[in-house]
């Protein structure tokens, strides 16, 4: 299984997927069709789940994401939630941005994965 690294663009985040059990998303996620962008992420996750490490850590450091991306982020979380993987989420957000904190808190309510909030 390969490590995946995708560079950020104006509309999409940087993505880093490590076989040791780490998924990182940094930047902005605002593509109109987020499903196409996140397809390789879902595929990687499926492969990872066949031979997982002890724990997977999901790091989100997003300054913005649109509704199309929200669906994809939740899909990633629900896939992990529905499995027996040990997981935790580190949700970073700009300290003054309550909305981004709230977005993370809302995702935390929707899945049964521990969230750690990290204001920057």
């Amino acid at each position, binding site marked *: 299984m390969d490590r995946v690294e995708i560079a950020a663009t*104006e*509309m999409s985040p940087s993505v880093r997927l490590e076989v040791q059990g780490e998924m990182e998303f940094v930047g902005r996620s*605002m*593509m*109109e*069709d*987020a*499903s*196409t962008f996140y397809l390789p992420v879902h595929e990687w996750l499926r492969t990872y789940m066949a031979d997982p490490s002890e724990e997977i850590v999901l790091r989100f450091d997003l*300054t*913005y994401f*649109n*509704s*199309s991306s*929200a*669906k994809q982020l*939740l*899909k990633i979380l*629900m896939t992990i939630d529905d499995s027996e993987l040990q997981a935790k989420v580190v949700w970073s957000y*700009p300290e*003054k*941005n*309550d*909305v*981004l904190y709230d977005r993370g808190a*809302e995702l935390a*309510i*929707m899945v049964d994965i521990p969230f750690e909030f990290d204001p920057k």
Partner: protein
Amino acid sequence: MFKEHFDEDQFCLYYSGHFNDFFTSKLISIVDTEVDKRISKKVAFLVAESFQNIIKHGGDYPVTPLSSLFGIRSRFNFIHIFSTNKVDAWQKVFLEKRLRSINRLGPHELKEQYLDKLRRGTLSEKGGAGLGLIEMVRRSRRNIQWDYFPHKEKFSFHMQVDLMRDRNVLTDEKDVLQIKENNWVKDTMYHQSVVFIYQGEFNDEIISPMLAMLETNMEQNSATGFTIFHTSVEMMQNISRHGKKDKEGRVRGIFVLQRFEDHFYVSSANYPNVPVEEITTKIEDTNSKSVDQLNEDYRTFLKESVLEDGSNAGVGLIDLRRLTGTPIDMQVEKDEFGEFVMLGLKIPMKKNG
């Protein structure tokens, strides 16, 4: 109001607000997707020159009748580039003299002036013009239109460059937009507190640079800034996602941003590819609910959408309603092309941003 005025435009964009060099490339990338590759370099040059004039004087807020404005319109066989600046009385006299002088020069004389200035960095007898204005006339091959309006002790000086898209196409001079039409747009924008208008195609390639321009007018990381940005993203992508395609397979619409003292107003309009009754029902339902109900709906629909293929989450309007706390406005107009749906949302400015 703007729809009727821009009905014959292939695309148009107007902006009044903070101006900086960063915009030039963003504006050019928007225009690049809309114009023929044969003239894109000329258009880019003319946009950059007009923009540089504005940047030198600086944009300002709050918007006044003297505020700088930039506009570009593609209409029939022409691209019209419009810019306005605040000038003193002596600058107005100087500019008028320069423009009269340049507009009198023929192509050969213009070239002479240009080369002379390049060679010596000075002006020849016949001229009196700066290099930028000379180049604008040379490249557009048409006189610059200009006008001015007094306000207190200053003037709003307006200029318009008209570039033919295809010189091989027979063109009626009546198709040339007169500057007074753009004067009306500026005046209307001022009175309606409009800071941004775009009409044309909507897709990620065009949306991205537009959002970059709008962002500079929003306080980064503030709740209000985030809300305006998010509303703009969702409304623009709503057009590209749910808009009816035209004959060329493109989805077109209008986006307008207004800035008032205590709130912003974001609106968009297009011909949707879903029945209007469906949109009306959805909005009425969304508007009737409390924030708690909307939060619950958002989570339910988002979870359900995960089980469905496709990019659409189906929660965009719910999210905007719950984030702003204000009802979504909707208006429908019927014309020969179908039903034109306009949506609008008020975004109050929060005390902490």
